[in-house]
C-alpha cells in the first residue's frame, strides 16, 4: 500500500520533471531555430557593402542594387546616444530623488506610480504621443522627436532600477560619510552612487537594449530616411524602421537586406546583454566581502 502510493508519487514527480524538461527543450529549440534562421538568412545577405553604403533607391536591378544600411546603423547609434544623453541623467536623477530624498514625502508615491505606469506603456502610445507633440507642431518627422520618444521610454525604467539599486546600498555607508562631515549631496555623489555604480549601469544597459529594438515609437517620430543627414530636424533613419520598410517591400533584393538588418539588430542586443552579464558578474565578484 505504502509502496504503491510511493510509486504513484514517483510516477507523478517523474512526469512533472519530464514535462518541464520537455517544455524547456521546446523553448530552447524554438529560440535556437529562430536564431539559426535569422543567422542563415542574414549571413547570406550581409556584406561589407551593408555597412558602407546607403540605399540606392533602385531596388529593381541586380542583388547589390538596393545598397546597404550604413545610414540605418549610424542612425540607430545616433538615436541611442541622443536618447541616452537625456534619458540616462533624467532617470538616474529621478532614482536618486526617490531613494535618497523623497522618503515618505507626498511626491514620492505618485512619482513611483507614474514611473511604473510609464515603464509599462505600450510603445505605440509613446509613438503617437511623440507624433502629436513633437512632429505635428514642427511640420515633419525629425531626429529630436525620435530621440525624445526613446528617452521617454528609457527614463522611467532607469529611474526605478536606480532607485532599487541605491536602496541596496547599506545605510552604514551613508551614516559613515555624514559622520565625517560630508554633506548629503557629497555623500550621494562620492559614496552612495559609486557603491551602486555596477548595478545602476546594468539598469541603463537594459533600458538601452529595450529601446534599441523599438520600432513603433520611431515610425511616428523620426520617420525614416534613405540618407543620414547631420540636420537633426529632418526625417532620420534607424535599423528597426528600415527593416520594417524593407521587410514589407515587394522587391526580393530589399527583403534580403532586411534580413541582414535583423541580424545586426540581434547582434547589437546580444552584445548589450552580454555586457550586462559581464558587468553583473564583475560587480558581484568585487562586492563579495572577505
Amino acid at each position, binding site marked *: 500500500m505504502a509502496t504503491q502510493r510511493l510509486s504513484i508519487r514517483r510516477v507523478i514527480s517523474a512526469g512533472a520533471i519530464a514535462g518541464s524538461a520537455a517544455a524547456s527543450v521546446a523553448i530552447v529549440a524554438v529560440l535556437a531555430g529562430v536564431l539559426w534562421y535569422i543567422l542563415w538568412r542574414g549571413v547570406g545577405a550581409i556584406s561589407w557593402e551593408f555597412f558602407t553604403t546607403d540605399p540606392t533607391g533602385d531596388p529593381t536591378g541586380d542583388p547589390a542594387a538596393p545598397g546597404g544600411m550604413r545610414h540605418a546603423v549610424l542612425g540607430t547609434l545616433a538615436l541611442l546616444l541622443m536618447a541616452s544623453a537625456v534619458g540616462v541623467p533624467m532617470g538616474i536623477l529621478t532614482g536618486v530623488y526617490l531613494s535618497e530624498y523623497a522618503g515618505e514625502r507626498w511626491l514620492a508615491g505618485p512619482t513611483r506610480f507614474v514611473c511604473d505606469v510609464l515603464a509599462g506603456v505600450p510603445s505605440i502610445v509613446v509613438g503617437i504621443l511623440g507624433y502629436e507633440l513633437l512632429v505635428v507642431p514642427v511640420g515633419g518627422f525629425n531626429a529630436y522627436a525620435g530621440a525624445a520618444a526613446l528617452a521617454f521610454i528609457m527614463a522611467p525604467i532607469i529611474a526605478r532600477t536606480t532607485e532599487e539599486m541605491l536602496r541596496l546600498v547599506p545605510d552604514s555607508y551613508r551614516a559613515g560619510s555624514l559622520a565625517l*562631515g560630508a554633506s548629503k549631496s557629497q555623500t550621494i555623489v562620492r559614496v552612495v552612487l559609486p557603491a551602486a555604480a555596477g548595478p545602476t549601469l546594468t539598469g541603463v544597459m537594459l533600458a538601452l537594449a529595450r529601446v534599441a529594438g523599438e520600432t513603433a515609437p520611431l515610425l511616428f517620430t523620426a520617420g525614416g530616411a534613405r540618407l543620414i543627414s547631420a540636420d537633426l530636424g529632418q526625417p532620420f533613419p534607424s535599423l528597426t524602421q528600415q527593416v520594417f520598410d524593407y521587410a514589407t517591400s515587394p522587391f526580393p533584393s530589399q527583403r534580403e537586406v532586411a534580413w541582414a538588418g535583423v541580424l545586426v539588430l540581434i547582434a547589437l542586443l546580444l552584445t548589450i546583454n552580454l555586457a550586462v552579464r559581464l558587468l553583473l558578474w564583475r560587480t558581484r565578484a568585487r562586492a563579495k566581502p572577505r
Partner: protein
Amino acid sequence: MSTPGHTQGPASGDAAAAAPRAGYAIIEAIRRGEPVTGQTHEQVRDQPAVIRAADFSLWYGKSRALHAVSMPVPRHRVTALIGPSGCGKSTLIRCVNRMNDLVEGVRVSGRMELEGSDVYAPGTDVIGLRRRVGMVFQKPNPFPMSIFDNVVYPLRIHGQRSRSELAERAERALRGAALWDEVKDRLRQSALGLSGGQQQRLCIARAIAADPEVLLMDEPCSALDPVSTLRVEELIQRVSERYTVLIVTHNMQQASRVSHFTAFMYLGRLVEYGPTAEIFQNPRLPETEQYVSGRFG
C-alpha cells in the same frame, strides 16, 4: 537576589525581573517617575570638560529615551558609558555629533555643549560640528573603495586636493591607528578585503584623519574577535593622548581596561559617574554595585 528574604522594605510587585528590587533608591525613584540626579564624583567635576550635557533630554516621537542627563566629559581622557542594553548610551553619544538628526521625530531639550557652545543651538553648522567630532560605529563601515581613498575621504570632502598632502596625512592617520605596517603595500586595494579588525582600525584612521577634537565610539569592538579587540583597545588608549574619547561599551572588562572615567546609565538616566576604578571597585550606589558585579542588565 530573587529570594524575598534578601529584600529590604516593601517589594515593588511590578519590578522588572532583571532589575534589583527594593532598597535601591534611584531605581525606586525612576519607577515612581520621579526625577533623579545621578551621583557624579568630585574627581570628574574637577576635570576640564570638552563636552558637557546639561539637563539633556531626548524623545523619539512620544517615547523619552534620555531623562535630564547632566554629564561633563573630561579632555584627553577616555570616558566609558556602560549600562544595560536600551538604556540610552548610543542615543546619548549620537547627540554629541547630532547623528540623531537623521532619525525622524527626534526632539531634545536641555543643552549639549562642545567647548562651551550648545550643539543644538539654532544655526549650528552641523557639518562643521561633525568635522570636530569623529565617530566610530559598532560595525566596521569602510566604504567600498581603496584603503587610501577611505582614509583621505574626510580630507577630500573638505577640499584637500594636494596629492603629497593627502599621502602624508593618510600615512599619519594609518600610523595613528596602528595599521600602517599592515597596509602600506596595498593602499590601492579595496578596503573590503581587510579583516574585520583591520577594517575597524581603518575606520578609526579615517575618523582621526581630519584631526577631530573628540572621538565617539559606539561599541567599537562588539563585532571583533578577541585579538582584534585587544588591538583596538590599545589603540583607544593611545589616541586618548590627543583626542577626547567617549566610548560606549557593553563589556565591563573593556570599560575597566580602556577608560579613565565610567558613567553608568540606566533607563535613560545617568546613575553614577566617576573614576573607572572607583565605579568598579568602590561604587557609591548599590545600583552601580549590582550592575558592575554583573547581577543584572
